[in-house]
């Protein structure tokens, strides 16, 4: 029943350093048991891609990644014939065998260059297929993708239909650059990851940067939370930026936040000039220090 499986999954993910709430665990568990792709949305740096990597470690299997970008096509995502190798074979065998035999040989699986999608469905073991930043692909490719994700089989004209040996654990991530089609969304279990609350962020920091100590980690989490909710930033600091910030403060031997050490490490948190200037405002710096030392 769900309770046991869910608890096991959550514990296993935590053992692999991924701290998550029940909401996230329920959704991931559901994707796994229903064998449906998991579509994860959220701001950059909240741990979307990490879910696939963690699942790979939890199930001790390979993570096959397809990084999406505009212009990505089937040749680069699914398969391509090894054209150069085929040409060489033609040259070598030119006078040695009959034309029909050669043609048969040339379109064999050994001349097939398997790209991530084909590799994932033809694997001997159930793998994790990470389709990263799916919102970057063009619409026709998205349509192709959701056909593949519903049937898990591929038609190659020269070879016929290749079905999945094992249905992979599919994780799709999106930064919300473009709204995905209803068809794709309908085939997936959906998860939105928001920025964590202070307690969860402290837990993440404690797991990833334990050497920073609880006091510094708590202050970092409170400060980042304060920035996200009180400043009108162009890019809010993500979890990965909190981790970098904690590490940087640790490198400066800080055991708590001060106006000086926040000013010295601004560029770890803020990634554009306007945001940095906002943070460096003396009033804002004072408020942050006051807030983290007196959270009530």
């Amino acid at each position: 029943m769900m309770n046991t499986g869910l608890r096991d999954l959550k514990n296993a993910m935590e053992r692999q350093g991924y701290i998550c709430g029940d909401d996230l665990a329920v959704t991931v568990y559901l994707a796994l048991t229903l064998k449906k792709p998991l579509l994860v949305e959220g701001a950059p740096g909240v741990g979307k891609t990490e879910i696939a990597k963690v699942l790979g470690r939890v199930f001790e299997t390979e993570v096959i990644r397809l990084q999406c970008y505009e212009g990505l096509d089937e040749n680069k995502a699914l398969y391509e014939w090894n054209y150069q190798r085929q040409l060489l074979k033609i040259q070598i065998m030119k006078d040695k065998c009959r034309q029909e035999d050669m043609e048969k040989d040339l379109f064999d699986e050994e001349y097939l260059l398997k790209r991530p999608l084909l590799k994932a469905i033809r694997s001997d073991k159930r793998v994790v297929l990470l389709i990263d930043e799916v919102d970057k692909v063009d619409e026709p490719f998205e349509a192709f993708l959701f056909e593949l994700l519903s049937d898990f089989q591929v038609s190659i004209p020269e070879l016929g239909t290749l079905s999945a040996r094992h249905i992979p654990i599919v994780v799709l991530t999106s930064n919300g650059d473009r709204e995905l089609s209803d068809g794709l969304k309908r085939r997936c279990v959906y998860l939105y990851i928001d920025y964590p609350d202070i307690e969860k962020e402290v837990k993440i920091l404690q797991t990833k940067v334990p050497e920073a100590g609880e006091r510094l980690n708590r202050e970092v989490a409170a400060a980042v939370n304060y920035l996200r909710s009180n400043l009108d930033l162009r890019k809010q600091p993500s979890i990965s930026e909190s981790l970098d910030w904690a590490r940087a403060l640790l490198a400066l031997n800080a055991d708590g936040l001060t106006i000086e050490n926040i000013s010295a490490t601004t560029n770890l948190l803020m990634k554009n000039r306007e945001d940095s200037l906002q943070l460096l405002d003396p009033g804002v710096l004072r408020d942050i220090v006051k807030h983290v030392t007196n959270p009530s």
Partner: protein
Amino acid sequence: MDLDNVTAILAEVGSTGKDTIEYNITRFAQILRHLGVRVSLAETMDALGALSKADLLSRDQVRGVLRACLAKSRKEAGIFEEAFNLFFVTPEEKLARQTNRREMQTERRRIINEAQQEIMEAVSEWQQDEPDKTILTESQLETFSLLPEEEKERMKEILEKMKSNPVNNPGELINRVLQSSLNYWRYHMMKNAEMEKNAGLPDARLTGDEEMDEVIQSVAAHFYHNPGDRIMHRDMESLEDGDISRMTSLINYISAQLALGMSRRYKKSSRAVSVDIRRTLRRNMRYGGIPINLSYRSKRKKRPRFLLICDVSASMARYARFIMQFMYGLGSALGGIESFIFSEDLERITDYFNRKKDFTQSMARIINDSRQWGKSTNLYVSLATFNSRYRKLLSPETVVFIVSDAKTISPERAAKLLEDIKLRCGHIVWLNTLPAREWAGHPPIKIFKKVVDMYECNTLSQLERTLRRQVMRNI
């Protein structure tokens, strides 16, 4: 077949009573649909299937399972949360809500009766012979009951004064005065209510089922808690002064994001479309002419140029400011935008924005210098000026944006000029600030829609969606 009907039939067939899971889940899916969440039948069935894996006694698990299957975006997840909390409640709470609803109805009835009595007392002296002469509708009586106390008194005073005027048919006169005055008040009250409604969830529709409608109305009214979300979905004209700075920073943020996406798109413009024979042969000379490495001919994608023609007549002035700011933000990705404003005639304002000044300062100068701000609209004259003086700015890469509510004189002649412009540019996109539900009542819109692609655009959310989805797809 209509999805709601299918759901309704499934709910009937699949349930022996109203307490089954199937019945409640299909009703819940129907509520979500009426709140603008796209829930298909397949997803409803997925949700039912997934529930069989969940511990039904755990509210959090049920919530998590349903959300994963039914909500497919951040906004939908927000609507889901609100609807879930209101729909899945204990029978006691449901009963309490029903009782509360009935009490409110009784109270409304009582107030209307009181209003009727109050009005009858005020006019009774006049209408002793014909007591039924003053017949007001329920909605008019309700309007009277909702009036501020001083307005009620004022209305009674007017009636009192009329007593001293000898007229032929006093009953009829009083009736007319009362009715028209109450209709006037009702119109104003409804207009304010409409603005309130627009501040909520715009896609919400009612079902006709009392229990479901209660959830829908409640979610729709309270959905936008976050001030940013509220501003995104509110009619730009109805923004209060306090919201302007928030709106400005939102526009800056969104236009910067969109500009970034657009500039990325044009950097990656080389796409392999066909084999370049000449290059391939040259490259493979060393292999004896066997084409081992292929070279491709790539098609260069030209960067589009935007041209904005913005209506700044009285009804459009506020929208124009925000939309121009948005386009100004996009200028960073597109190397400047040709901009024009018009009302009675057309004026070019591109130079104001090229002076590297802050947007607010540029805008203030335009308003001071322009003779068009706040006048009436004549698109025909404006387009004629455009065609005679600025036609050379058009090329097949130009996307022309027209921002207007289409309330202009001579729409047929203006449409003809638009056709000329269309032949010379890549695409014309009309951003109409009038709500789409009102388009049918405006004949000029029908005329222009034959010539251009028209999109409803009176909220920041619509502006962003239109530019992102429609425009980027077309260019």
